[in-house]
């Protein structure tokens, strides 16, 4: 689980079919001082996380496959929760 901040979004027409219907958000990991660090990556979002909200991102492929209901999906990153 990564502590991240939502920093943008992405739209794609040509994509793996398991991504259909899911929002793709650009997330950047936060360091111990809550500062963004590293290169942003894309995670799928089920909860409607907004811009610059802090979120937990799971890197577990098994969990991601269950969420998209496709055992042949290569998706790995998904937003697991929005931090209050």
């Amino acid at each position, binding site marked *: 689980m990564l502590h991240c*901040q939502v*920093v*943008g*979004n*992405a*739209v*794609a*027409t*040509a*994509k*793996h079919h398991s*991504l259909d219907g899911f929002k*793709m958000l*650009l997330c*950047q990991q936060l360091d111990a001082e*809550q*500062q*963004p660090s590293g*290169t*942003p*990556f*894309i*995670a799928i979002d089920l909860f409607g996380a907004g*811009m*610059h909200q802090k979120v937990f991102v799971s890197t577990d*492929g098994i969990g*991601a*496959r269950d969420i998209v209901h496709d*055992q*042949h*999906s*290569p*998706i*790995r*990153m998904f937003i697991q929760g929005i931090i209050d």
Partner: protein
Amino acid sequence: MRIGHVIGKVTMSIQEEAFRGGRWLVINPVDTEDLNSCIEQQPKLSTQSSLIVYDNIGAGEGDIIGFVEGAEATAPFDDPTPIDAISLAIFDTLKYVAPAN
């Protein structure tokens, strides 16, 4: 999924049977400062290391794609397949807004 720029392709005449129908692309990761402009204009080469990605969604040179690395890359294949990186999406738009703190 990480974001990368397709900078080349690889062709192989002998390869695992399961890879038939796809192509291999040379990917250079896109740096944070290039995320907003990379769709319209070619991003500069990143210092992050380039990698080879398997593609069956139809990406070509110049496209900005999302790719996944690791064991998840084998998931679309029916049988155990020796593969470590696969493309997932060809991006139409990318928006990056740096946090204001």
